[in-house]
């Protein structure tokens, strides 16, 4: 072994070092900036880690490859934060499935083999799926129905469920699965953020569901909080509250284009197939039906509360590069 593990600053029992997969993404970079001040961080991503903190060793490797085990041997990883999940609807299905599901299996297996004590997996509150008959506040026990209308979500659900079974199979490891609500912020580029950045977003005429948003920095704080000793389980992570979609669009100064619901789906499908938009038609469910969760368990068991208020969180979409 050429490099000995860094001396880790210990603060209140924070594990060191922490391996972050998917660190090169926008959320990963934000997390790295927050975390490296509190403990030693090691990054893994198949992309290069540009513009990240200089003191984070980065390994550019695909987590499905055998090479990634070298990272565990080299650094004596104490905890894992697994962000390496791909949500790109343009990615070929088989590639996304392979990366997400196989990649997760492999990285978790390595955690067992190398005595990692803490595993934090980033899932999403969207696993419950926006549905017309949803309750207004879905608890963690609610069935994960997102794939019923949107088969692309199968990966994320499979991942979430695999992480759950991993949690039960390995009681010696503290596994935390976080399901944050829609993540927005100045740097993230995901479906909700991209939608809210449009000057004239499509909406479905006559529909105005309650929506939950969370600031990207708050998600990072939640991930760091999840590293806390003793915390394990599945947690919804909510932001500053619920608000109608129309209020969000008004706050951002958008001029929505309401389209009757019979027309909007075929319209978006054509546009998606013609590559005029990156939004698949199934995403329309999110602007018609509820997918709102109860975040009280994380508040109760981990002492979680968001730092950013409601208006601030919504407006954080604005501090971003133009689409």
């Amino acid at each position, binding site marked *: 072994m050429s490099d000995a593990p860094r001396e880790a600053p210990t603060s209140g029992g924070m594990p060191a070092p922490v391996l972050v997969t998917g660190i090169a993404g926008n959320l990963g970079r934000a997390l790295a900036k927050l975390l490296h001040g509190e403990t030693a961080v090691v990054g893994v991503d198949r992309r290069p880690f540009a513009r990240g903190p200089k003191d984070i060793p980065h390994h550019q490797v695909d987590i499905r490859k055998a090479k990634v085990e070298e990272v565990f041997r080299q650094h004596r990883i104490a905890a894992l934060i697994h962000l390496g999940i791909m949500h790109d609807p343009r990615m070929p299905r088989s590639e996304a499935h392979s990366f997400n599901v196989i990649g997760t299996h492999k990285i978790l297996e390595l955690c067992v083999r190398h005595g990692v004590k803490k595993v934090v997996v980033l899932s999403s509150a969207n696993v419950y799926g926006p549905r017309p*008959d949803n309750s207004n506040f879905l608890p963690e026990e609610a069935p994960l129905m997102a794939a019923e209308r949107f088969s692309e979500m199968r990966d994320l659900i499979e991942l979430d469920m695999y992480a759950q079974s991993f949690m039960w199979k390995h009681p010696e490891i503290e596994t935390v699965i976080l399901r944050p609500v829609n993540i927005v912020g100045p740097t993230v580029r995901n479906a909700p953020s991209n939608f809210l950045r449009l000057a004239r977003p499509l909406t479905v005429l006559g529909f105005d569901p309650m929506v939950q948003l969370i600031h990207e920095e708050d998600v990072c704080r939640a991930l760091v909080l999840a590293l806390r000793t003793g915390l394990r389980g599945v947690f919804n992570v909510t932001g500053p509250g619920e608000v109608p979609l129309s*209020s969000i669009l008004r706050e951002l100064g958008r001029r929505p284009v*309401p389209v009757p619901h019979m027309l909007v789906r075929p319209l978006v499908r054509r546009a998606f197939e013609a590559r005029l938009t990156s939004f698949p038609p199934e995403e329309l469910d999110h602007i018609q039906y509820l997918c709102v969760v109860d975040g009280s368990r994380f508040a109760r068991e981990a002492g979680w509360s968001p730092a950013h208020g409601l208006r601030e969180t919504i407006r954080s979409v604005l501090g971003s590069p133009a689409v």
Partner: protein
Amino acid sequence: MAGLTDALRERLRAWTLELGGPGTRTRLEKLTPPRNEYGVDPYGLDVEYVVAAIAPLLWLYKRYFRVQLHGADRVPNDGGVLIVSNHSGQLPFDAAMIEVGLLIEKDPPRVVRALVERWVPTLPFVSTFMARCGQIVGTPENCRRLLAAGESLLVFPEGVRGLNKPFRERYRLQTFGLGFMRLALEAGVPVVPCAVVGAEEQAPALLDLKPLARLFGFPAFPITPTILPLPLPARYHIRFGEPMRFAGSADDEDAELERKVREVEGAVRALIERGLSERRSIYL
């Protein structure tokens, strides 16, 4: 989106206050549900919206159905409560009239949430209107949560059987489902019986064309003298009974729950009888 422009909202709000009569504004100011900076509670209820949006319903209440409300102060002023009523009239104007009554004539007013069918959120405009007025999909999860938060729910245990019954069956209470009693026991909340007299005569269904109903996927296809959804101007009499408190567990056997449910049925039936006997004329 069922957005009301500011000017329209003001006009409607003024109309509500006018129809409600003196003291309406003072009473409505006592309503203080949780409101975030965007004017809604966690379920999407917007009280300002409600005050404006109910103006046409209040017109129906005062001028068309000329509702007489009895015993509104038997509904507790706060804390979780289940209001249980008979259901009739092909279209659920009875739900609207009960809610308007408790909002405009009760002092202090209460926002009552009726349970809507699971397909209501698939309807444009209706879905948003219902949410802004506090009506929610009747999932067990929602009901438990709201009752625990001290809110009031309006349930019709007869369901569509009560709503769609033919005219010759009027005022014959259909068998109550047990669900509401389980809910009441689990949440430990009182049940307030309620009876609506008059709704049966708003759309007397002379024929029920079941084959046509099946074709459209409706529970029933009643043929009435008016073209639905325009009801006849029947006089409404709404009567609340004393709150009933039940001891026991939601996990008790059906037989035990049924006993309790029959008690509530009896209370509602008695209120119906009272309303019928006191009624002088149906339409005039």
